[in-house]
């Protein structure tokens, strides 16, 4: 397996220490320190969820406003900064209306399942060399598995509402999300082939001499495009937002939800968007790795002045902007057109891409040094 390890040799690797590592190291010496690290991890993820909710929803509304020749929220706080706070307060204090004939247990559990699936992903993303909750050695496989749980939340939400509209939304969501996971996984596998490891930190560190989007000889770019399309479908955003298609199904699977539990669905959609952008940034755009060019040492010195967390944030923010841009520009696909896009177009391209990547890696047929 030497050729795989040779590809992952980093020139000046920053050491990655995750919170889990610190907790593990402290277990023998000071149990309380270890517990402190674990609590810090939990609190950090919770805080991140909350902050992301506030910031992303505000960003979405402002970006939507500017795309639509209007200003967006302007009243609550300067330039509407406190708008999401006001909205959260409203949703918390709202009456929780549950249909009388709904399946109470599942109706209660569905938004929690949705939120849980997205928050679990946040725990393995490498935000910076020192900011990561845990670096599971099957990193990207874990992410793919856990985000599949999100389907359960939507399907149960649609079913348990005892409402034909919600049911149609839930059924569509199940078909859509399960199909597009395949394309997403295929493009992820291309990156795993090049990086040689499943762990997310390992993938980031393998991009030291260049990000995979251009270092992977064209297969990286194709995989990136496929991943973005598949992620848009996974997170149910236009042009693939038929499960919640506002003009068709009023609210789709979340029609019968109000108050805090609607907030959970809403929040999980935005955190999902963040998670998908973060994974795309990690796999294709180098995660927290700055923009290095081989041989230009001064340039590399300058770009490494910017802290890695800021690099990660910038890349993720750029991809989030792309997702929002899609939403406010494109019309919606019909269900069968969506399925056709996946099974007849994206899947064959993904397979060919994977085979090409495998051939390149095995035969070391590089166009330029990897």
């Amino acid at each position, binding site marked *: 397996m030497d050729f795989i390890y040779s590809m992952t040799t980093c020139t000046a690797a920053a050491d990655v220490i995750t919170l889990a590592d610190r907790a593990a190291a402290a277990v023998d010496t000071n149990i309380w320190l270890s517990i402190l690290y674990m609590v810090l991890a939990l609190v950090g993820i919770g805080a991140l969820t909350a902050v992301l909710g506030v910031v992303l929803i505000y960003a979405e509304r402002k970006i939507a406003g500017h795309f639509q020749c209007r200003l967006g929220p302007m009243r609550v706080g300067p330039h509407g900064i406190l708008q999401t706070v006001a909205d959260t307060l409203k949703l918390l204090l709202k009456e929780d209306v549950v249909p009388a004939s709904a399946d109470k247990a599942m109706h209660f559990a569905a938004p929690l399942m949705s939120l849980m699936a997205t928050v679990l992903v946040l725990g393995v993303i490498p935000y910076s060399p020192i900011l990561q909750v845990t670096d599971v050695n099957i990193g990207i496989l874990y992410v793919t598995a856990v985000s599949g749980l999100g389907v359960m939340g939507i399907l149960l939400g649609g079913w348990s509402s005892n409402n034909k509209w919600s049911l149609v939304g839930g059924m569509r969501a199940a078909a859509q999300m399960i199909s597009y996971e395949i394309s997403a996984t295929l493009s992820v596998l291309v990156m795993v082939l090049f990086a040689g490891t499943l762990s997310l930190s390992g993938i980031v560190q393998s991009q030291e001499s260049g990000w995979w989007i251009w270092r992977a000889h064209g297969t990286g770019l194709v995989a990136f495009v496929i991943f973005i399309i598949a992620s848009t479908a996974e997170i149910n955003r236009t042009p693939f937002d038929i499960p919640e298609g506002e003009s068709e199904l009023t609210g789709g699977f979340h029609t019968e939800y109000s108050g805090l539990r609607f907030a959970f669905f809403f929040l999980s959609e935005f955190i999902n968007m963040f998670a998908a952008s973060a994974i795309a940034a990690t796999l294709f755009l180098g995660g927290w790795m700055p923009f290095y060019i081989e041989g230009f040492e001064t340039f590399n010195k300058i770009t490494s002045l910017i802290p890695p967390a800021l690099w990660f944030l910038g890349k993720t923010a750029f991809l989030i902007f792309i997702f929002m841009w899609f939403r406010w520009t494109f019309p919606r696909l019909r269900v*069968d*057109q969506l399925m056709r896009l996946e099974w007849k177009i994206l899947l064959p391209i993904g397979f060919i891409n994977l085979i090409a990547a495998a051939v390149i890696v095995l035969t070391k047929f590089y166009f330029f040094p990897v």
Partner: protein
Amino acid sequence: MTAIVRTLDDVLIAPAHPGRGATQEYFLNMGPQHPIAHGSLRIILLLDGETIRKVIPVPGYVHRGIEKMCEHLNYRQIIHLTDRMDYLSALMNNWAVARTVEKAAGIEINDRIETIRTIMAELQRIQSHALWWGVLGMDLGAFTAFLYSFRDREIIGEIFEEIIGARLTMNYIQPGGVMYDITPDFADKVKKILSYMKRMVEEYDTLLSGNVILQERLRGVGILTQSRAISLGCTGPVLRASGFAYDLRKVEPYGAYEKAQFDVVVGTTGDCWDRYYVRIEEMRQSIRIIEQLIDDIPAGPTMVTKFNTKIKLPPGRYYNHVETARGVLGVFIYSDGGEKPYRLHFRSPSFNNMWAITEIAPGWRIADMIAIQSSLDLVIPDIDR
């Protein structure tokens, strides 16, 4: 044969369970409150999975009894009721009644009035089609289109506000003339609007018409053949998209339409895409008409009869129609010689266009139903009157 009267419940009989291995059909209610109802229209769908088997529209949620009200109002007062039917082509509705009354009472109007009426009606047609475009974009998921088209409607609405005083309920074209004269800088303002709208229609084309997803949603969907369209009484862009060039502005020119050269836009297959593109092209043709008329508006009075005179129609039956943005709006008046109509009936374009959906939609999916309904461009108060 006898006449059997039924109720809605007789129609909504749930199909029996077909037994093992087959799917059961179910009723889905797109109730009067729905994001795409374009108003309060209730549509009951009989679905098999996602495929539509039957469409049962239930109109009447906006029925205000306009025709009964008209029997108690004189002909000038009726004009203000016509604004409220198809509010997107209010001026053309006014024109329909005004024209019928003028022809019946023998009132001759001069060229200035005709030209002003034509220019205002065409401006309103552009405005109406812009709203239709925005709503179609919103229904199909491109929310931004809605806001762009409303921004453009505002520009046209400003000139209406300046001349007429109202943005929606115009009450402007009266039997005998128009209510208010145009301002001296009317021509310049309208020319600015026209150059702006020309660019905007290009932008509409770039934003939606060229979009692959939109074309996939609209091409080949919901085909209405020409013979069925004629038998169903469809008029306007719906009929023209099916291939038959019936445009009252060309067939029986009224107003100043004879002085302007324009094309009647006709589609080929009668699918949603044709209905979509016919309206986009009609916007361009309307701009063309106004351009030809705006520069020489003849001089003269804007009201040939004194406003306070009561108009009495001789006894008889009168029918006349105009081409609104939605189709042919006909006005049938039966007068017994008084100053109020004994019976006044509006042949509304949306009423006749709506029922086409019961023929077009079965066999397509829910998402196509929305595309079809958007492409028919229905205004519900026009259906219900």
